[in-house]
Structures are given as C-alpha cells and as structure tokens.
C-alpha cells in the first residue's frame, strides 16, 4: 500500500501526461491524429467505393484529376494530368475521345515491388516477413501504361469493381474485354498487359487515350475517383506470389501509389499509419478559394509546398464515448459530433446560427459546417396500387403526405438541426439547384416573409379528401386508410422516430404501420418492389445534377432493372428530358430542362423530399487549413499542425489528478483495520463460550 502511494506521488511529481494513448516516441512529432470506426474492406482502388476506405486510398493513390480543395461550387483540376481533358467528338458523335497527358517525373512511393529480385521471392522468406517494407525498396516513374493497366483491372476476373457495369456501357470494348477475362486462369498473377483493350490505349509514355461510346460528359468526374488511379503491374505481380496472401500482404491491403503519403502500418483492427512519401514531387497549396477563405486563414499557406504533416495516425475507435473524450483531451486533432455530444459541443442561436459552446470555446475548439452533397428521403413505391402511379388520386395522396410530414421538426428533433429541408432531388452546391423563392417546392411550401413556410395541415387534409380519403377514411367504404412504412430497425432508440412518423400521419387521420426489419430484408423488399413507403438516402458520386436526377429515371427502376431508382418512378416526359439533359454541358438551356424536370417530380411527389444533411465538424486550435470538402477525400496533404501548441495544451488539459486514487487506496487500507483487529482478537481468544 505504501509503495503504491509513493509510486502515485512520484508519478504526479514528474508532471508528465499519463493518459497519452500514443507511444512516447511520437511526442513532439508532426503527426496528424485521426480515427476510424469501421474496418476498411478494400484498399484496392478498383474495388474501394466507400468513404471509410477513401480516407486511406485517396491519400495514397492519385487519379488523373482532383477537386479544388477550397473553391465552391466544386471544380475539377488536374492532379497527375497536365490539364483537365476536353472531350473530342468523332465519327459523327458516335464516339468521344479523351486524350490525357500526364505530368512527367512523377515517381512511385518506395516499394519492394519495384526491385526485380523481390518479384521471385522464396516462400520461406515471405513467411518470415512482418511487413512488405522489410524488403529492399525501389521506385520508378509513373507512366500512362499504369493507368491503362488499372482500367483493365476493372474487368479483372478475380476483382469486383462496382463500376464495371457502368463503364462497360461507355468505354469501347470493355464489355468484350470483361467477357474474355472471365475465361482466364483462376490462380496466380494475370498479366493484363498481354490483353489489349480497344478503348484505352497508350499513346506514349505520358499520354493515354480513352474512347467512349457516344457522349458522357460526366466521365471526367470518374477520372477524379480512385477507380482511375494508376496501379503498377509490378505491384500485382509482387503480391501474387505464393505465401503473400497468408501474411495478409495483398494489394487490397497494401496500396502502392504516387500521392503524398504511403501506408506503412496496416492493422485495421487497431491502427493504420500513413507516412510522408519521400518520392512525392510536392504540390503547391491552393492560392484561390471562395470568399471568406482568406479571412478564415485558409489561404495563409498559399503556394507553399504540401504536404505539411509528416505522418497520419488513424486509430480505431468503435465506441463514441472514448472517441469523444480523447478528442476533448487533445488526442485527436479533429472530430465529428455525435448526437449524444451535440448539446455539449454546439449551441444554436434563435436565428439558427450554430457556434461552439463556451466549454469548447475555452479550449479553442472551432466549428465548421457544410451542406453535404447528399439527400435523405421517404419514397413512395410507384408500383404500389395505393400510393404509386400517375393517377390524380395517388398524386394528391402523396402530396398530402408530403405536406403533413414536418421535415423541419424532424431535422430539429432527430438531427439536432443538422440539415436543410429538401425542395427537390438536387442538393445545394450542384448545378441546377436553385436558391430562394424560385427554389422552393410550391406543392409543399409557400413563400412568406422572405422564407419558405410549409403549407398547413388543412391544405394537406383538403388534398387527402380530393384523393378520396376524407379524414383519412376511404370515401366509398368508410374504412380507415392504413399505410405501411418499411424501414431498418437499428435498436430501441428507433422507437421515438417511428412514433414521430405515426404522429405525422395521424395529423391526416391516416394510420401508419411501421414494418421494421434488418438491412438485408429491407433491401430485398426494395429490390422486389414489395414496399409501400420506405426511407433511404443518396450520397453523390460527383457534383453533377445527372447524379441526382438519374435516381428517378424510369429505366433505372430497381424492381425492373436493379437500377438506382428505388421508388420505381416512371414519367415519360421526365425520362425524355433526362436523356437530353444528361449529356449536356452546364448552360442556361440545361438549367431550363432541369427546372422542368424538378417541377415534374415535385408535382408527382414520388419522394417526400427529406433533407440535405449538414456536416458539423470540430477542430482544435492547433489545426489549420481544415475545410470540409464533400467530394474530395485527399485532404491530408493540406492539413497543418502547430505541434508545440498541441503539446502544451495536451499537458495542460491532462495533468494527472492523483489524490482521489490515493484516497481510495487509503479508504481500502482503513477498512481493513477492523477486520485485522477482529482477527487478532479472535486468535487470542482462550476458548469459545459454550
């Protein structure tokens, strides 16, 4: 006991931080500390498609293009390409050619795959390895062949690229190439260089040509995604050696790229570490941004060579409470805000402006907000005989429900105000979205005193009566109208949301039955078209209205063709306009078509336009250049850390408090005294009383 007390006192006197979760060797280093909750499933750029994975892949791989970090609306700029390629229409519009030049002199990160003898390793040597980086490392220059190789990998018989189907529709010869690849051997390295792909050619060492069928202006956005990152053939050959997979050494887990960072520690159970790529060419920090960026200090590093941080450490945090507390202790440099922590972190003024609470302010924590390029909605199944279809009756029923569901209240209660009520399918910041009075949905809102105001429940009831359901009962039979909402049940916490939905329908006298199920059954119902109403969302792949409007395009019907139109909505005029709009450049004409399309779907109301989510993120005072960007995930190279300030504040915030632990030990010691005394008395007793 005495020793424990002395030890506590000694450690307290040292003045050192005790609760630092990182190795002592990392103290004072220029490291960015972040976290991840879900294990990434794939880090191979041909398969990786989720945000959880993009936080790693996009720091390592470099596609041809990237999004400007600061400018809004989102703007494509070259990354490894010399310029953003311009499409060239040939053959009377039947084909579109993109000729892309890449910058010379770009070199890959150090990697064993670039050392020839490492491509024929002995199995016993592989078995001894703890990391592929224990082998001799080499590099080479990035060439156009690496991009060609990667496009071929979309059709690799043992890989699953989510965009193979889509790209096969456009890239000349990719569908045939994919079919021929299916005949290839199942084991070992498949050298894709031997197989030509008609639509993707190497022009010279630094130029590649991609030929598309017809026109697909959105193709350039795909060139900014990891699917179009270079993959060196040597890396595939290296990882295909026998014994590599058993050590978890695969390209799916050990990315090989040209970007600012390289993945040097790969433990998806606990920690992933990115270190500065010593072969990175350097890239200047942007010199332009949107208004307000300069005042916010986001242009202070303009023109300086990136990256600014030497190392990025991602620690796995599965539970929100430890994660949040570690952020408050300064062990994470930035953080999102969970619902449980919202009130502790953010206060919202009467005007609706969000700011950090005094507690956060005292720590110098700052808040950034941004509207995401996403939409959450409640869909009506167009195939359903009651709520679906283009009849007047069903349309009025959908419109009535759209008015009755108070999205503003929903955002306030369930999202802590983190969202904007949606007025249509296109999210803010995307071409085609309209602000202000001309942007409101007139079916649901009126423009009153310079802002949209939801129509009254009386207006909804009137529409419901016109639909043949006065007071929520079928006019002919008097039977109550019962609707069914399919949703995913995640736990007991969902009950309040379900009750809230029931109350919204009760306003109209309509009964709502919630059919809560697991994610698999929910998806299955949507695939089969056996739902009536259901909740879903969409996160944009790229900032183009086509990526939102196609969600309601008839031929994309989920029930009929397994497409992304989950509501199975169908409207001939809308479909015809979509086909015209999708291949157009942004122009007043395109805007006119989009306006008409939005008008059609507002009137038909296949969705209750839910919300555009707002992202709230917090960052410590020592972190600069942090600006939310919904499209780009290659953000680590822009971040700057004031290491000395972080060290000082961490020490100040985490001084060990020893006296309660000492007191606890003392109480335990004192409580043992009566027992000891009693024991001694008992032992000295001469005899027991009869």
């Amino acid at each position, binding site marked *: 006991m005495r020793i424990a007390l002395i030890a506590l006192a000694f450690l307290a006197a040292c003045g050192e*931080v*005790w*609760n*630092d*979760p*990182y*190795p002592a060797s990392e103290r004072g280093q220029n490291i960015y500390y972040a976290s991840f909750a879900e*294990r990434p*499933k*794939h880090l191979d750029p041909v398969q990786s*498609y*989720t945000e959880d994975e993009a936080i790693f892949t996009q720091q390592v791989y470099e596609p041809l293009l990237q999004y400007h970090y600061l400018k809004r609306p989102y703007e494509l700029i070259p990354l490894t390409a010399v310029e953003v390629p311009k499409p060239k229409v040939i053959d009377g519009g039947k084909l579109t050619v993109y000729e892309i030049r890449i910058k010379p002199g770009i070199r890959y990160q150090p990697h064993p795959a670039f050392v020839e003898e490492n491509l024929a390793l002995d199995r016993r040597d592989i078995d001894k390895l703890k990391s592929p980086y224990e082998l001799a490392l080499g590099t080479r220059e990035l060439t156009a062949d690496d991009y060609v190789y990667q496009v071929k990998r979309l059709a690799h018989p*043992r890989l*699953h690229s*989510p*965009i*193979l*189907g*889509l790209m096969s529709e456009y890239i000349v010869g990719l569908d045939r190439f994919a079919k021929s690849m299916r005949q290839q051997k199942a084991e070992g390295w498949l050298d894709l260089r031997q197989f030509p792909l008609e639509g993707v050619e190497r022009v010279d060492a630094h130029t590649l040509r991609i030929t598309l069928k017809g026109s697909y202006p959105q193709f350039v956005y795909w060139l900014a995604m990891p699917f179009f990152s270079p993959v060196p053939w040597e890396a595939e050959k290296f990882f295909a050696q026998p014994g590599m*997979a*058993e*050590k*978890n050494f*695969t390209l*799916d*887990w050990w990315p090989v790229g040209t970007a600012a960072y390289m993945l040097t520690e790969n*433990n998806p*159970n*606990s920690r992933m570490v990115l270190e500065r790529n010593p072969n990175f060419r350097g890239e200047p920090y942007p010199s332009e941004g949107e208004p307000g960026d300069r005042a916010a200090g986001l242009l202070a590093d303009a023109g300086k060579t990136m990256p600014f941080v030497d190392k990025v450490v991602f*620690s*796995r*945090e*599965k*539970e929100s*409470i*430890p*994660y949040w*507390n*570690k952020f*408050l*202790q300064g062990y994470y440099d930035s953080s999102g805000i969970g619902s449980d922590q919202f009130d502790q972190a953010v206060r919202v003024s009467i005007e609706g402006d969000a700011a950090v609470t005094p507690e956060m302010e005292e720590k110098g924590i700052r808040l950034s907000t941004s509207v995401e390029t996403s939409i959450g909605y409640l869909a009506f199944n167009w195939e359903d005989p009651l709520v679906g279809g283009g009849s007047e009756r069903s349309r009025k029923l959908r419109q009535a429900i759209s008015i009755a569901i108070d999205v503003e209240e929903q955002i306030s209660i369930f999202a802590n105000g983190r969202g904007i009520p949606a007025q249509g399918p296109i999210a803010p910041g995307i071409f085609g979205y309209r602000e202000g009075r001309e942007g409101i949905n007139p079916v649901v809102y009126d423009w009153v005193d310079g802002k949209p105001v939801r129509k009254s429940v009386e207006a909804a009831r009137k529409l419901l009566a016109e639909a043949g359901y006065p007071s929520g009962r079928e006019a002919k039979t008097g039977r109550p109208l019962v609707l069914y909402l399919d949703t995913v049940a995640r736990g007991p916490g969902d009950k309040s949301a379900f009750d809230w939905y029931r109350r919204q329908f009760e306003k109209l006298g309509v009964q709502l039955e919630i059919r809560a199920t*697991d994610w*698999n059954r929910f*998806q*299955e119902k949507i695939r089969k078209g056996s739902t009536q109403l259901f909740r879903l969302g969409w996160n944009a792949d790229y900032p183009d209205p086509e990526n939102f409007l196609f969600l309601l395009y008839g031929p994309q019907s989920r029930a009929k063709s*397994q497409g*992304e139109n989950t509501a199975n909505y169908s409207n001939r005029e809308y479909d015809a306009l979509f086909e015209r709009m999708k291949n157009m450049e942004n122009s007043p004409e395109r805007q006119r078509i989009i306006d008409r399309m939005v008008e059609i779907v507002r009137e038909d109301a296949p969705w209750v336009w839910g919300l555009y989510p707002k992202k709230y993120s917090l960052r410590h005072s020592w972190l600069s250049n942090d600006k939310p960007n919904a499209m780009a995930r290659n953000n680590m190279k822009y971040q700057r850390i004031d290491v000395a300030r972080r060290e000082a504040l961490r020490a100040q915030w*985490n*001084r*060990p*408090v*020893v006296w*309660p*632990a000492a007191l606890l030990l003392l109480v335990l010691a004192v409580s043992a005294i*009566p*027992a000891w005394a*009693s*024991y001694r008395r*008992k*032992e000295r007793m001469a005899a027991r009383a009869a």
Partner: protein
Amino acid sequence: MLAYIVRRALYAIPILVGVNIITFALFFLVNTPDDMARMQLGTKRVTPEAIEKWKAERGLDKPLFVNRGAVGWEKLTDTVFFQKSIRLFAFDFGFAEDQRDIANEIRTRMWPSLALALPVFALGLLVNITFAMILAFFRATYLDFWGVTLCVAMMSVSGLFYIIGGQYLFSKVWHLFPISGFIGGGSAGKFVFLPVVIGVVGGFGASARLYRTLFLEEMSRDYVRTARAKGLGEAVVLFRHVLRNALIPILTGVVVVIPSLFLGSLISESFFGIPGLGSYTIDAIQAQDFAVVRAMVFIGSVLYIVGLLLTDISYTVVDPRIRLE
C-alpha cells in the same frame, strides 16, 4: 487416464459437427448468400452478375445442405455446408470475406486478448477467494453482513456501468490512464491496467459471494471441527484444510474457462479499443462474415471441450480419491 482423454477427444467430434451444423443453420437462416454478397459488395451500383460472380468464387452458389442435382456422395459433399465445414476439422480456417487470412488474424489478435483476459482471470480469482475467505472467517458478524451486502450490490450493477464509470473517473476526470487504445510489448500495461481493474471489480460480487457459500459449507464439516480441536489456528484451518477441500466446486467453474481466455472479452475490448479476438468476433457478426463467425464458434467449442477435459483432470490433482476411467 490416457484412454479417458482419447475417449473424450473422440466424443468431441460429434459435438463439434453438431455445433457446426447449428452455427451454419442459424447463420443461413438469417443471411442468404445473396445478402452476404451485397454486404461485401456494397449497395451502390451492384449488378446481379456481380453478385453471382461473388457467390461462385466462394462456392456459395451451391445448395446449402443437399445437392439434389448431384449423384452419389456428391449429393452431400457438393454443398456449401460440406465444402465450408470439412476444412475446419483440419483447423484450416481459410480467408475472411475481406480476404485476410483468418489463422493469421487469430495468431495476431490472441495476444492482446490474453493481455487483458489472463490478469483479469488470475487477479479476479485471487481477490475473490481471499475476500470470500475473509467473509467466511468473520461469518455471522457485521463484517460478513456488510461484505455480502457489498457483493449483492456489486453483482446487481451492469458490467457496462463499471466500464463507462471507470473510464469517466480514471481516464476523463483524473487523467490517470488512456481511455482507450493499445500498444503491444512493454507499453501494454498502461492500456490494460484500467480494463483489468474494471474486469476484476465487475466480476467480484457474484464470484466472492459464491465462494463464500462454498467455504461456509466446507466449514461445517467434521474434519474442520477436528482440525480446530487439534488446536490449529483459524487461518491454518482455512487455508490448509477448507480452501483445499472447497477447490473442487471452484475448479468446476474456473478451469473450464481457462482455454476460452484466448477468445477475449466482447465488450471490454470494444470499449477499450483492444484489438483482440472478442472484437474480431463482434466485427465479423456485424459484417456478416460467415467464415470468421464459423471459425470463432468452432474454436470456442474446441476450447470449451478442452476446458471440460482439463476440469476433469484437475479433479484428480486436488482430490486423489478421484480416478478418471
């Protein structure tokens, strides 16, 4: 004894087959191969062809238990169940759905699990037995009454409360330990100290109370009276005679869990960010990774059977009258 061990090992085979059938049936009752494919491939832009390809690559395009289209033994062997089960018995677990080698993961993750589970087990046993003996020593006194009350109060509180409360006090308010995280080697102590203390405290109430009952039962035996009559001190009676004789029921509950310590703790590992086998299992269930779930259930069953066997063997050590035949 060797014959007994061999016989028990042979008994284990049908048990393991049964466990495997139940695991398989339960898993595929909830998840179809299509569900598994969608979970792995995501929900965006997934084509029916991609799902079929994924299933075919993993042999999940076959019938589950009986292949009516096949002939002879292939009716049973050319099925998902047979193909996925047979290699388990050779401890060949294959690859997880994210293509990581399961055996490699188990080898890597069992050490963090053990770093947490072993001290909790050993310290817990020591503290619980000591406290129970103290209560037995002071039976029918105020000390005994308040000790039992403490045990009942502690066993009535959820384990999660100890974890969250411990993290709040020791890590958040007093800054004495990291809230979560893990570094192997010599630094591991700093990360496992708090979860170990919480693990011991969390299991204290129920175990100490049970052991006290066992000790009290033993103390009413004739041999204890004889020992006292011989003039032995109470401490000697307790530690040399009562403890030894009370060990058999204690061993029943204790030895059986020793092999399972490898499997780690599901909740503690998640909350404290310890990358052990407990959190591996939870992750696999959430990700519908059948390969991992099946492997972990299989290993759990094997370890449980080994634990039961060790329990039987340990009886012979503590009680020479017992013979394994």
